Every structure is written in structure tokens, then in C-alpha cells.
């Protein structure tokens, strides 16, 4: 069996001759004293940044440490498509957790309510066909016992002193299931769990229902974990049952990850035909932790930020990017940062570009980056950006305390199209205090935006742990807040669910609740925009090309276009260019004069969020560049 081969290969690479174990070097790897396990359902296309940082830190302290990517062998067992369908918890339904929860706890209800997915708000998700959830769940469940048995056997053969599990999204139950099986075989192995799923109070509540874990590590353990392991290996006291780590203040002290374990295990499975040759589709790096914007003003819906903002030095970031690009040519490097450090493009990219660096990069950014910053990113190799656009409604962005305005979001979408950047964003709506007139205005506006990249999904807001909306729910108009009911399918009744849940439900009043027709119109407009972009080659276009004498020609293939081709004189061209930056109505009338009415009528310029803004992208002629 494929995954069995993979498990054996992982062990065999560490056993070299009849005399027993090899301490590393040619022909084999060192038998790890510390084995970190990456359980399902981490995405198979990239390694685990946290586990690799900890492994590197342990090695730097002289310990033998390796990372076992159990997620890869499980993906190979169930098939890549099935795995990917399960790995992202759709609409707050952690089906992957349910797969392994059934192995950890007896008496849990059948998770059938987690099967259904709302496809209508994500029409471009390709695997959300009806019944996919149940089918994929059944496939995974059928493979789970064999997977656990083989993984535990591989761990037992290696006989590490310590096994650590990394648990982020949908990895907790698989961690517990593997730990339970390992403990049954080798009760002397010390088991630890860390990662985002174990931050407090979640880690404490989890420890209370996880007897297969000897220690739960909460918080950023980069500096603490190696010392815990070293003390234990040297015969010192066992780490405490639950330990909270102070986050490192200087990220330059954090070890750089080494992805050779991941690539080796991935290669073995690919060679056996178990995983696509397209993997890895990205590798992770980090330049910062926390969110610099949140240090000023936390976005009220955001549950991502847990510790204060810290960043690596520019020199360290440049060195890591250069090294990774050299080692992994052509593989996308994705920043794990909450958001790109402020001023980063001008700080590091000119130096990289000057040295000839051009490598696929991806970073989460704020939507108020300037076109000059975006252009630098494009020149350095960025093909994708994740700009933190959650709405195009001014009042919603204000309520979110997003710190970016709706016209800035639209301008970023325009620049993204001009520069051929893939812009990933989601649309959130239905929040307390939202404005019906604004939604109506948005429904009228959306056809004019059809040439810009649409959101990937749209949905009502979700209350997430640590978000200000949850922490101060009553003040923001959320009532009867309680953990999402999905957790009853994962945890035994004695669990302190309120301390372990990530997603919460509640009641609140949205203006849309009283206007079902408008809500339907809004959703249909969004859906139409998204489906228009499903197929390449059919995206509407609205671009301008400069002509001799300062004139301009605009081509418009949006469904709402008044004319397909518009020719403008130099004044018209200047007026259009003037609105590349957002302008007030007064500025528009004073500077652009008579052209404004025509630009508005054609939908080349919009009046939105108290600003006039051009929607026209730049065409790319042979002698012209993306700039």
C-alpha cells in the first residue's frame, strides 16, 4: 500500500545496516530523539513552517530532530482531490476534524450536518458539488484506521524520546488520534502538542480531554521548545502539563526553516504516484508576526492576531528570500505573515531587483499600498497578492475599523488588473448597523466593476475567537453569542467548548434582514461577477491605450459598456488620468470640468465613497509595460 511504503521509507532512510542505527550522514538520517509530526489536514502542497522552525532550533541545540509529514501519507491514501476537499473547513464546518474525532472519542454523534456546503456563495470552488462532503468523509474514514496503525508503527520503529504534534487548522483531532495510537504501542514516548490550536485558553481546555498528551505547549515556542526537549532528554524534569511560552521579541533569533524533510517525503510519495507532481506549489517564509496595523487599531472582525507585532530585519528577510529562491527555483514563496511589514517594498525590493532577483512571491498586504509599491512587487516577481479587502461598502469598512477605505480597495483591484496581479479577496456583509442604501448603491455599482477581479467568496460575518467583535460582542450588537454547534461532533460532552471553540454564533440585526429582495439582488450580483471570471479569456476588459498627440483610446467589453471603443482627445485623456487617484467632487469639477459627466456616464469613473475614481486599467501594447 502506498502510504505504508511511505511510512517504511521514512523509517528505512534512518536505518542503514544490520548493526542498527545510523547517526546520520551518507546513506541515512539520524534517528531522531525528537520527532515532530505534521498531521492531516495541513495542505499537502507546502511544508509546515512552525514545525520546521522548531526542528531547526532543536538541531541547532545539538538534538537529532526530524519532521514526519503524516498529512502527505494520508493525502496519498485518500487521494489528493478528496484530501483537498476536506482540508479547508467550509463555512465553519471542520469535516476533517470529524474524520479523526471518531477515532479519539466514542459516542460522538455522526457528523452528517457537517457534510452540506453552501456552494452558492463560492461558485468557483470546483469540488463543492452536492454530496462531495459525505463521499469524501466516507473515503477518509475508511482509510483512517490503517493510516493510524501505520503511522504509529513508523513512530514506534523510530523510537524517538519525544513526539511533538503541530496543530493549526483542522489538525487537532488527527494529532490526538495519532498520539493515542502511538501511546498504545509505546507508552514511554513523551507526547507534546503545540501550534495555533493550543493557544490559551484552548490549550488548557484541550489538555483536560487529551490524556494521550503529556504536555500542551501554548504560544510561540521557538525559543522555549528546544530547552524543554533538551531538559527532558538529559533526564531533567518533564515539562509541565500545560506551558505558556512568551513569544520571541527578536525574530532574527528565530531559526530559519529547512524543508528537506518535506521535500524528501513528498518526493517518495510522488515517485510512487501518490501525490501530484505539481507539489510543492509553494513554500512558506515569514518576515513578521502579529499585525502592525492591529497595534494601532485592531480590525474588529479579525481573529488572527494573538501577540504583538514583531518583524525580522530587512537584511535577514533579504538573505532568506535569496537563499530560498536559489534552493527552490520557480517555487512560489509565500509569506506566512498576517500582513506585509509597513514600507517593506521600498525597504527590500529595490536591492533584490537590482541584483536580478525575480522569483514568485506572495504576501498578505494592506489595500492601501501605493501603485509604486505594487509595481516594485511586480518587478520582484509577485504574481499574487492578498490585500485584505473584505468589503467595498464604506460604512462596513468603518465599522470594521479596517483603516482602508472602499475607494482604496477598488483602486487596488484596478491596479491589480493593470499589473496582472492575481488579487485574492473575500466579501463580508450583514453586520450590525449596516446601511441599506449603501447596499443598494453597491448593487448598482457592481456591473461597472466586472472587469476587476471578483471576490473568491461572499458571506455573512463570522464571529471568531479573539476578534474584538466577539470579545466585546454586546457593545457591537451581537447577542446570544455561543460556540458554533459544530463542536459537539468533535468533542466529548465534558469539554469546555466555550474555551476551545474558534467560531461562534450569535444573533444580530442587519438592515439586509428586512430587505430580502435587496439581499438576493446583492448576492446575485456578486455571484454573476464571480462566475463571469470562471473561464479564462472571457473576463470583461476596460483598458486605455495612449495615442499620439496625448490622445487616448478606451476599449470596454464590460456587459454594462455604453460603447466598445471610445476615442478621447488630450484633455479627455488628462481628465481620465486625473482620476487614477481618488478625487473629491470639488476637485473633479475644478480640474476635470466638462469631461467628468462623460466619464461618469461611460462608467469609466465612478462616484463612490465620496470620491471620484477611474476604473480604467492600463492596456499593454508591445512598446508598453505593465507600469
Amino acid at each position, binding site marked *: 500500500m502506498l502510504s505504508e511504503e511511505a511510512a517504511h521509507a521514512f523509517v528505512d532512510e534512518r536505518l542503514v545496516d544490520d548493526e542498527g542505527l545510523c547517526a546520520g550522514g551518507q546513506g541515512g538520517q539520524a534517528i531522531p530523539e525528537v520527532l515532530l509530526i505534521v498531521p492531516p489536514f495541513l495542505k499537502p*502542497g507546502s511544508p509546515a513552517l512552525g514545525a520546521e522552525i522548531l526542528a531547526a532550533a532543536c538541531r541547532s541545540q545539538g538534538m537529532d530532530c526530524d519532521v514526519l509529514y503524516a498529512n502527505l501519507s494520508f493525502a496519498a491514501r485518500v487521494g489528493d482531490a478528496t484530501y483537498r476537499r476536506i482540508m479547508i473547513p467550509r463555512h465553519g464546518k471542520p469535516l476533517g476534524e470529524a474524520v479523526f474525532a471518531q477515532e479519539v472519542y466514542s459516542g460522538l454523534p455522526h457528523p452528517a450536518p457537517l457534510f452540506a456546503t453552501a456552494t452558492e456563495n463560492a461558485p468557483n470552488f470546483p*469540488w463543492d458539488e452536492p454530496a462531495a462532503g459525505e463521499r469524501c468523509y466516507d473515503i477518509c474514514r475508511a482509510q483512517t484506521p490503517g493510516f493510524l496503525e501505520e503511522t504509529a508503527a513508523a513512530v514506534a520503529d523510530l523510537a524517538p524520546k519525544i513526539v511533538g504534534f503541530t496543530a493549526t487548522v483542522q489538525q487537532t483531532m488527527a494529532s490526538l488520534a495519532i498520539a493515542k495510537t502511538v501511546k498504545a504501542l509505546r507508552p514511554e514516548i513523551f507526547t507534546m502538542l503545540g501550534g495555533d490550536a493550543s493557544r490559551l485558553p484552548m490549550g488548557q481546555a484541550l489538555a483536560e480531554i487529551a490524556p494521550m498528551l503529556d504536555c500542551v505547549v501554548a504560544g510561540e515556542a521557538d525559543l522555549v521548545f528546544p530547552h524543554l526537549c533538551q531538559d527532558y532528554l538529559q533526564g531533567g524534569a518533564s515539562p509541565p502539563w500545560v506551558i505558556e511560552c512568551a513569544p520571541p521579541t527578536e525574530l532574527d533569533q528565530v531559526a530559519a526553516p529547512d524543508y528537506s524533510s518535506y521535500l524528501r517525503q513528498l518526493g517518495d510519495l510522488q515517485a510512487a504516484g501518490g501525490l501530484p507532481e505539481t507539489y510543492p506549489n509553494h513554500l512558506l517564509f515569514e518576515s513578521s508576526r502579529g499585525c502592525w496595523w492591529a497595534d494601532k487599531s485592531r480590525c474588529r472582525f479579525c481573529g488572527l492576531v494573538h501577540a504583538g507585532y514583531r518583524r525580522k530585519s530587512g537584511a535577514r528577510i533579504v538573505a532568506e528570500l535569496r537563499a530560498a529562491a536559489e534552493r527552490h527555483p520557480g517555487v512560489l514563496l509565500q509569506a506566512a505573515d498576517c500582513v506585509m511589514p509597513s514600507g517593506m517594498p521600498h525597504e527590500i525590493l529595490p536591492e533584490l531587483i537590482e541584483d536580478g532577483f525575480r522569483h514568485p512571491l506572495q504576501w498578505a498586504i494592506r489595500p492601501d499600498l501605493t501603485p509604486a509599491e505594487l509595481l516594485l512587487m511586480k518587478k520582484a516577481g509577485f504574481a499574487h497578492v492578498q490585500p485584505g479587502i473584505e468589503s467595498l461598502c464604506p460604512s462596513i469598512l468603518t465599522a470594521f475599523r479596517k483603516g482602508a477605505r472602499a475607494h482604496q480597495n477598488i483602486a487596488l483591484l484596478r491596479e491589480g488588473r493593470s499589473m496582472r496581479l*492575481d488579487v485574492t479577496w*473575500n466579501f463580508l456583509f450583514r453586520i450590525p448597523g449596516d446601511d441599506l442604501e449603501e447596499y443598494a448603491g453597491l448593487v448598482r455599482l457592481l456591473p461597472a466593476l466586472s472587469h476587476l477581479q471578483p471576490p473568491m467568496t461572499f458571506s455573512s460575518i463570522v464571529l471568531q475567537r479573539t476578534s474584538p467583535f466577539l470579545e466585546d460582542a454586546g457593545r457591537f450588537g451581537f447577542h446570544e453569542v455561543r460556540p458554533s454547534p459544530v463542536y459537539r461532533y468533535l468533542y466529548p460532552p465534558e469539554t469546555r467548548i466555550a474555551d476551545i471553540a474558534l467560531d461562534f454564533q450569535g444573533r444580530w440585526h442587519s438592515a439586509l434582514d428586512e430587505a430580502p429582495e435587496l439581499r438576493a439582488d446583492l448576492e446575485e450580483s456578486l455571484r454573476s461577477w464571480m462566475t463571469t471570471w470562471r473561464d479564462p479569456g472571457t473576463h470583461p476588459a476596460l483598458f486605455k491605450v495612449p495615442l499620439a498627440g496625448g490622445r487616448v*483610446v478606451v*476599449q470596454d467589453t464590460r456587459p454594462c459598456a455604453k460603447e466598445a471603443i471610445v476615442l478621447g482627445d488630450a484633455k479627455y485623456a488628462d481628465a481620465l488620468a486625473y482620476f487614477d487617484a481618488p478625487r473629491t467632487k470639488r476637485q473633479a469639477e475644478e480640474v476635470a470640468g466638462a469631461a467628468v459627466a462623460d466619464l461618469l456616464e461611460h462608467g469609466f469613473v465612478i462616484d463612490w465613497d465620496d470620491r471620484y475614481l477611474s476604473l480604467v486599467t492600463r*492596456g499593454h501594447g508591445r512598446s508598453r509595460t505593465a507600469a
Partner: protein
Amino acid sequence: MSKDDALGFLRHMASDPESAQQVVAEYNRLLRDLAREKGFEFTDAELTEAAEALKDASAGEVSDGALTTVVGGDAVIKHGEDEKFFLDPPHMP
């Protein structure tokens, strides 16, 4: 040219670049008509350059469109020879 015709051009350009000269000629004709209507003076060379630029930009929109197809999840989606992955956005429902 109606907008549907223009969109047809975009698709045509992507699938059949060998017809570029025909497309340029069509753009040239359109621009000449528009210029006459607006009272703009263009030389033949300027018109041809503008038509070439429009053709290139249109073709670019189509080819670039293939790179910016919206997909979901963490999938690798095949579009002809292109493969595209997608990365988890924050705050996904």
C-alpha cells in the same frame, strides 16, 4: 464595433494570433471612423500604430486572463497548459 464584436475580437486574438493583421485592419477602420466622427486628425501611421496597440492590448487581456482565473481552495486547477494554485485567504467563511 459592438461590444459583443469587441469581445469576440479578444477571444479571436487569443486563439488565432495569425489573424493579427486582419484584426489590426479592423481596428484601423474603427479608429478612422471614430476619428472622423470626433474631428480628430490622425495620420495613417498614427492610426496603424494605435490599431497595433489596441490589438496587442486586447490579446494581452486574454492571455493574462488565463493567469488570473478565479479558483478556490488550495487547489491546483488546470486551464490548458496552465496550472494555478490558490492560497488560503484570511477571513474565509
